[in-house]
């Protein structure tokens, strides 16, 4: 089996429009959650989110591109460019033929659905733009990345709600590990911050009106975010032979299904995914120094996740650090695991642990070291990234420092 390393990373999210900005914000414990700005927001009960402001698509894309790129595709292309530029890879010949792109998204072109439903239902129009379908389809972003960068290998989109990007990255990892591809582009993208997107989420009554405070006793729900993060996964020898800068090694992953409830999380399902990732990466529990938690800030997730971690790690659960960066960038749903992998890379590469901000009151049911409010310096060799989706679909990735 091949070893798999990360040789490029890119992102755009509420904390920054590239990786350095995002990591600096995480290190500073800056909150990217703000007042939502879009049409009809006054009719919403929930008015905050991790929205990407100061981003002008017209400055980046031409008219014909914009006719085809939903916001989630725009985010993907920007993040993919940053990642691929950093990797230094140019795809041609055999490398192009075997390299592909596997991305996660839960909603795909939600904004495109929203705008066009509004125009036919509310405004009574009987005609929509011819590119509505190619713009909103969940695989649009993956397809545009393949076209933009000449990736002719296996490409597809994974949709498993809040675990989409972890499931996607697990597939890409598997392809490189087993030798199917030398390099894969992977990650996730989401853009649900529009009237219909938030209105749907309001229905579940799990959203906070004021802040995302994971693990804090006074937490009152999740806050949505938007954006993308994209990575270049590459076979170790391939990366070494061309002298690539290696950001981290991906050492294992596991997936599990709760087979229990469509929304309520399961401690056993989460624990099985974490245990599976340790086994797959050939790690002992004591090897893990940091976990980027799913940590949504809902009553149910946070206590269930802490119980699962305590169960898997035993005594070591008190020694490791577990933080939720959703407190800063919000919950990016199908892209969340990808943005959170950046925090794991920062932990193992730079020795900086991103905090859980907004932490105000200890919760006895979340009695772990959640790195409250301030980033910490610590030498960490191995980090895990948890994602536990609605529908009971769990995916956990393990990354290790490459030294």
């Amino acid at each position: 089996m091949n070893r798999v390393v990360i040789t490029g990373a890119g992102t755009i999210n509420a904390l920054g429009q590239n990786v350095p900005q995002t990591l600096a914000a995480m290190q500073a414990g800056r909150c990217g959650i703000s007042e939502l700005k879009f049409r009809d927001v006054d009719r919403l009960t929930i008015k905050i989110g991790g929205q990407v402001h100061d981003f002008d698509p017209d400055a980046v894309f031409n008219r014909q591109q914009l006719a085809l790129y939903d916001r989630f595709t725009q985010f993907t292309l920007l993040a993919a460019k940053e990642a691929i530029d950093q990797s230094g890879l140019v795809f041609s010949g055999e490398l192009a033929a075997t390299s592909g792109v596997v991305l996660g998204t839960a909603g795909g072109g939600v904004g495109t659905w929203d705008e066009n439903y509004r125009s036919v239902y509310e405004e009574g129009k009987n005609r929509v733009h011819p590119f509505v379908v190619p713009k909103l389809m969940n695989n649009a972003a993956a397809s545009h990345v393949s076209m933009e960068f000449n990736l002719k290998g296996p490409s597809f989109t994974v949709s498993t709600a809040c675990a989409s990007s972890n499931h996607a990255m697990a597939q890409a990892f598997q392809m490189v590990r087993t030798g199917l591809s030398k390099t894969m582009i992977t990650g996730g993208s989401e853009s649900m911050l529009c009237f219909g997107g938030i209105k749907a989420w309001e229905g579940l009554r799990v959203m906070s009106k004021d802040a995302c405070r994971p693990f804090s006793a006074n937490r009152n729900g999740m806050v949505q975010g938007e954006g993308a993060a994209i990575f270049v996964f590459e076979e170790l020898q391939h990366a070494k032979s061309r002298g690539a800068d290696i950001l981290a090694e991906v050492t294992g992953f596991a997936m599990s299904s709760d087979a229990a409830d469509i929304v309520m999380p399961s401690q056993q399902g989460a624990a099985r995914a974490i245990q599976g990732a340790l086994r797959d990466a050939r790690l002992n529990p004591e090897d893990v120094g940091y976990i980027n938690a799913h940590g949504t800030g809902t009553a149910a997730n946070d206590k269930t996740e802490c119980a699962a971690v305590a169960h898997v790690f035993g005594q070591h659960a008190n020694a490791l650090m577990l933080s939720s960066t959703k407190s800063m960038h919000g919950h990016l749903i199908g892209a969340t695991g990808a943005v959170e992998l950046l925090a794991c890379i920062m932990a193992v590469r730079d020795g900086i642990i991103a905090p859980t901000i907004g932490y105000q009151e200890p919760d006895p049911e979340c009695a772990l070291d959640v790195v409250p409010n301030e980033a910490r310096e610590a030498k960490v060799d191995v980090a895990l990234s948890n994602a536990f989706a609605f529908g009971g679909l769990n995916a956990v990735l393990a990354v290790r420092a490459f030294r």
Partner: protein
Amino acid sequence: MSVKQQVIEILAQQAVLEPSDVTLDSTLEQLGIDSLGLVECIFAIEEAFDIQVPFNANDPTEGDFDISSVARIIAGVETLVAEQS
């Protein structure tokens, strides 16, 4: 603006050309408008004149709407506009 001028502007915008470069005997191929571009033009024409163009992207030559040259497209649109009023 006449129907002719409006159609030429729509085609020119799609082809990223000056309207003066769109001649009546040009074909869509000569203008560099591909099948997806053609669907966008049809949409723009329908929006501009509030008409329904009988056009099937599966077989663009099949319907009554002749797209073999700029002049034919203009004639087709003029007929549809006249029928509608």
